[in-house]
């Protein structure tokens, strides 16, 4: 485990010559290597490439050149995004192994590399970014560093547990229904799905082309802001990319929430008895922190809650089905069971159902826009339960799915950040979801960062990573010692 928990601290250390990129990356490599078997972080490690990139970063610092925004920072890439170092598997037996190398670096990877980022390897995912682990397939099972009997959440699993465990300081996830925010919440780190179209997604294996997002995962909201600064911006290679100006996210992190209007929905009414009571308590505590920071808080109810989650499901299944159907016909059994039965369930939807889902999304966009007339930020739990044990998971049709509160925002496209907000009684992390208006990632990041100035949940280190003897998880201690 690195002494430096966050990208921003590490960048300070690098600039102040307290540490070299080589040392930082060596620590990351060592941590990854020592924990990989237990946690299932990586599909492929690129140790030598990473060492070379670290040395190059050190040269930049040594020369006194202006470092890139991620100069020398070790980063993991979810293995559905292409890089030049090797093939992309999507953690699947099915994906054509020549697909990734033919593309080379995805636009986002190229941008991270140009910013001096050090790619340490390709991280585990749920197969094709959907579903749950399949024990019969020859791939690592990602495990939660807070309790290895539990799941990391999916599908950006390896990026999530890798950041939490210190195998790298940040990384890329993708999010079609919550695949950045759920593992971020469950591994106790931060992660943001920006506005749909904000980050180009070319070079990423698609799940649902009108719902897919690539985004940063890291310990802190500040780190996510640094990464998003690098990732965001138009590129013509993605038909869905939006040509909108990218603001300076970092200068907006003022810590001051004075006058900010926050609407809260605990979503408890949608989960009934399934929800963990710790979720509502943690959210209420988090909201009072926002209030102390100057925000005015009101309660609200998300409109079309069930309908929009279903619209995401109908859309993602149908779009994924169009991509996978040729392989479903010829290689059904090579897919993970939850992938083939989950995506395969699209056979139940008609073309008109698919169109109707798009119409409902538009209705939802309008209704959400109306909410944002009265508030600047909406907060909810990221999920109403902590990570399930791997045994409990079953398939995607499990009732636990309704305790995930992320896919609503894929239906409408708004940016949504998850930040750690506490723990369950079983010592599993919980996340708060912070949502803002389209293309206003800056406000969400500001709220997350201000919250993290007042709390230390995002700095809690899982026992497995071995930095602290005991995980810090008492709310009182944390807020008392807040910086």
């Amino acid at each position, binding site marked *: 485990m690195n002494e430096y928990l966050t990208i921003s601290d590490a960048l300070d250390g690098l600039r102040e010559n307290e540490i070299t990129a080589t040392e930082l990356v060596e620590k990351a490599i060592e941590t990854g290597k020592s924990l990989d078997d237990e946690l299932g972080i990586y599909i492929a490690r690129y140790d030598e490439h990473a060492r070379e990139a670290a040395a190059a970063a050190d040269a930049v610092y040594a020369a006194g050149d202006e470092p890139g925004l991620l100069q020398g920072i070790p980063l993991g890439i979810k293995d559905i995004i292409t890089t030049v170092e090797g093939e992309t598997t999507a953690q699947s037996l099915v994906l054509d192994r020549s697909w990734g190398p033919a593309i080379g670096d995805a636009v986002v990877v190229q941008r991270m590399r140009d910013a001096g980022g050090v790619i340490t390897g390709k991280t585990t995912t749920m197969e094709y970014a959907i579903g749950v682990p399949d024990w019969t397939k020859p791939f690592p099972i990602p495990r939660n560093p807070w309790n290895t009997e539990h799941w990391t959440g999916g599908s950006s699993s390896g990026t999530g547990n890798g950041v939490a465990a210190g195998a790298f300081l940040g990384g890329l996830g993708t999010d079609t229904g919550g695949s950045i925010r759920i593992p971020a919440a469950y591994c106790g780190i931060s992660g943001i799905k920006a506005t749909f179209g904000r980050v180009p997604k070319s070079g990423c294996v698609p799940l649902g082309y009108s719902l897919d997002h690539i985004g940063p995962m890291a310990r802190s909201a500040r780190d996510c802001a640094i990464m998003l600064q690098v990732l965001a911006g138009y590129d013509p290679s993605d038909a869905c990319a939006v040509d909108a100006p990218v603001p300076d996210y970092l200068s907006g992190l003022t810590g001051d929430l004075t006058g900010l209007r926050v609407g809260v929905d605990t979503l408890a009414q949608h989960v009934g008895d399934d929800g963990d009571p710790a979720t509502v308590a943690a959210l209420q505590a988090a909201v009072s922190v926002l209030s102390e920071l100057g925000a005015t808080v009101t309660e609200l109810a998300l409109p*079309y809650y069930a309908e929009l989650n*279903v619209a995401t499901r109908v859309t993602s299944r149908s779009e994924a089905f169009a991509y996978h159907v040729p392989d479903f016909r010829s290689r*059904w059994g090579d897919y993970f069971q939850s992938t083939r*039965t989950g995506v395969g369930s699209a056979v139940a939807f008609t073309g008109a159902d698919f169109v109707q889902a798009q*119409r409902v999304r*538009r*209705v939802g966009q309008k209704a959400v826009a109306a909410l944002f007339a009265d508030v600047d930020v909406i907060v909810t739990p990221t999920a109403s339960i902590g990570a399930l044990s791997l045994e409990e998971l079953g398939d995607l049709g499990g009732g636990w799915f309704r305790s995930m509160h992320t896919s609503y925002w894929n239906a409408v496209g708004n940016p949504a950040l998850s930040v750690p907000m506490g723990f369950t009684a079983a010592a599993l992390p919980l996340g708060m979801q912070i949502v803002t208006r389209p293309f206003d990632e800056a406000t969400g990041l500001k709220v997350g960062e201000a919250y993290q100035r007042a709390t230390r949940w995002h700095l809690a280190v899982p026992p497995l990573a071995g930095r602290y003897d005991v995980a810090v998880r008492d709310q009182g201690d944390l807020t008392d010692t807040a910086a």
Partner: protein
Amino acid sequence: MTGDDQKLDVVLEICGISPLPQDKEIMLKNFVTAREQAALLWGVAEARYEEPGLIFSAKL
């Protein structure tokens, strides 16, 4: 009309897909859920005259 399992068999045949025996139960459960979900979407009265922005269908 036939039962759900028979309807599922029909759409699977239309789509050219043959699930493994161990998938049948999950597929049937997913099929029934999916039809309920589709019905939920058709219940959104406000969508009657709605059209999505092009971003959700295709960008030209």
